[in-house]
């Protein structure tokens, strides 16, 4: 719980921080431009007044002066702290000043050069113009304070600050809520996965259709569980195969020895018994060696090597392995549908895993049909390789068909036939790992048909 809150808090803080910064920048920008534009507007107003002042004091005729004065009083409001200054300037003057005003030299120089200049100090705005009359030059400066804009800007400041705080709080709250939602599927997944342990490795996560990261994660998890389950079941399978295979010759050896020791027997009889024991012991040795080999190829710790293999060879290896374990079985390979073109027999996969899968299916067919005929067939359609295993055995009851892939499940009609319920789930997982499909059709008392299909090796075209 602690860890989860931290990440989700981190995300919320990060998101809020970024948005707040953006908002802050925006506010600053708005405030800056509002101030600049309002200043420009005020300067224009001062400029008009300066021009009029100039005209008023140096009129072309008497009437003009009073007309202008009236215009000014009627139509131009008096700006707060408005004052006007007029100063004559000689052309040769190099430095200027107007008593009562502290204006920088730049200002005066600009007035001379461009006939117009503006300056702002604190709340005071200054506009200056150059007025030439009768050969003389005069500087007219009008100054005022921009009370109106001062209030507006103050309001704007308040609005922006409160808006900023409010928006940030809202974003933080929404961010917190939504980041919780985002983590919800991950929390659910964690919950589900917590329940998976060695007893129920066959559980899988629900994967919703779609390509988003969460479904991807679920799918990857399921793949990993497939691999884990396969390797786990391989080990179980090995142990069960081993115990079964080793017990048969051991039983013979023990039986033979006990029988021979029951009473006094002739030397020939003892020799016969020893011969049988030796034969069985050698058989035991061969079995142990092949089991070891099976274990070594399965668990040598190296990464599964995927090679291009020939499906018919795999099938024959599996057939041979099954025949060794059940020598009385009758396994026939039906080549009637085998493709002529050997390219259509190539698949890509891990050899020992595929052989193991096929062997398990064939063993099931032999075991549950009590060594009646088992037919193996191989065929390929354009994209898939298909292997069929058909037997005449006890079949699987219809309502139990859906459970046959559950590990350790044994159908109700298996009776005295020994088994551990591992072979079929393992085989299916192996086939699944190779992007294939395993389907079972069965009729009780009549037989079972297993159909294994997986993609052909396409020569690496795609």
């Amino acid at each position, binding site marked *: 719980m602690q860890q989860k809150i931290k990440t989700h808090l981190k995300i919320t803080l990060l998101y809020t921080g970024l948005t707040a910064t953006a908002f802050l920048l925006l506010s600053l920008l708005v405030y800056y431009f509002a101030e600049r534009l309002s200043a420009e507007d005020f300067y224009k107003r001062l400029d008009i007044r300066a021009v009029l002042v100039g005209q008023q004091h140096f009129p072309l005729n008497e009437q003009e002066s009073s007309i202008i004065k009236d215009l000014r009083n009627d139509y131009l409001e008096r700006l707060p702290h408005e004052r006007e200054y007029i100063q004559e300037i000689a052309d040769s003057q190099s430095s200027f000043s107007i008593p009562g005003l502290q204006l920088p030299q730049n200002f005066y120089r600009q007035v001379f050069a461009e006939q117009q200049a503006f300056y702002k100090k604190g709340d005071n705005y200054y506009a200056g113009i150059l007025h030439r009359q009768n050969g003389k030059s005069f500087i007219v400066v009008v100054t005022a304070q921009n009370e109106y804009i001062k209030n507006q800007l103050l309001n704007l400041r308040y609005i922006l600050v409160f808006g900023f705080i409010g928006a940030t709080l809202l974003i933080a709250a929404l961010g917190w809520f939504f980041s919780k939602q985002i983590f919800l599927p991950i929390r659910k997944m964690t919950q589900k996965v917590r329940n998976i342990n060695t007893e129920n490795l066959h559980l899988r996560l629900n994967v919703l259709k779609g390509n988003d990261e969460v479904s991807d994660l679920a799918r990857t998890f399921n793949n990993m569980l497939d691999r884990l389950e396969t390797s786990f079941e391989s080990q179980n399978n090995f142990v069960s195969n081993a115990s079964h295979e080793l017990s048969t010759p051991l039983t013979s050896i023990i039986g033979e020895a006990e029988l021979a020791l029951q009473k006094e027997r002739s030397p020939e009889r003892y020799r016969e018994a020893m011969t049988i024991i030796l034969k069985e012991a050698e058989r035991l040795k061969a079995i142990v060696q092949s089991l070891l080999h099976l274990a070594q190829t399965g668990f040598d710790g190296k990464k599964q090597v995927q090679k291009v293999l020939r499906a018919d060879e795999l099938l024959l290896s599996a057939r041979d392995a099954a025949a060794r374990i059940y020598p009385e079985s009758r396994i026939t390979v*039906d080549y*009637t*549908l*085998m*493709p*002529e*073109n050997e390219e*259509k027999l190539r698949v890509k996969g891990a050899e020992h895993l595929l052989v193991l899968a096929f062997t398990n299916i064939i063993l099931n067919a032999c075991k549950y049909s009590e060594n009646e005929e088992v*037919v193996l*067939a191989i*065929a*390929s*359609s*354009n994209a*898939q390789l*298909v292997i*069929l295993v*058909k037997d*005449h055995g006890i079949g699987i009851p219809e309502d139990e068909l859906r459970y046959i892939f559950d590990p350790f499940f044994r159908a109700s009609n298996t009776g005295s036939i020994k088994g551990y319920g591992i072979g079929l789930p393992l085989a299916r997982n192996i086939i699944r790992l190779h992007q294939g499909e395993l389907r079972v*059709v*069965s*009729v009780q008392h*009549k*037989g*079972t*048909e297993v*159909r294994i299909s997986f993609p052909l090796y396409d020569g690496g075209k795609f």
Partner: protein
Amino acid sequence: MLLITSTEFCTIEIKVHHSKNVVMKNVLIPTDFSIRSLRLIPAVCAHLDEEELNITLVHPLASDTTISALLRSEKRHREARLYNAGFREACEVIRNRFGNRIVRLSVEFYYGGTKAYLKHYLEARQTDLVVLTKDFPYDRPTKESRDIVTTFSAAGALVTYLPAAKRHSLLLTPESSLADLLYA
């Protein structure tokens, strides 16, 4: 009145190639879209040794000759559904089994009803052989399907009955599967 004749609407292998010395035979195999009817293909391959084959699987349907039916194309879609994924897969399997011997494998529908019609149909396709079997009864998968034996035995001398016996009596379910294709 001109009837719209059978339309070929799918082909399994598009490329057609001939080898130099061997004459290609055109074979017509009526089918009821059951997988076991495809067992006639291996039978033909065994019967016509060393020949390259252009095989047409054909299904006879009674055609509706009213104008509205002729103008309606949806009927074709209904018929197309007979050619389902399982059948298609079985066709591919057989095609791969015989590799280059089967130059072309296609599926058609036949809408004719008279002997003369059949004669013209076979002549146009230069059919060398029409293959039927007595080893299993042909189904009639739709209402409009005609009886296969009646329709095509009218081809007279071109008809051959070949065996299509199933080798393994491992008949499991009424549903046909690839296993039905295993033959003697």
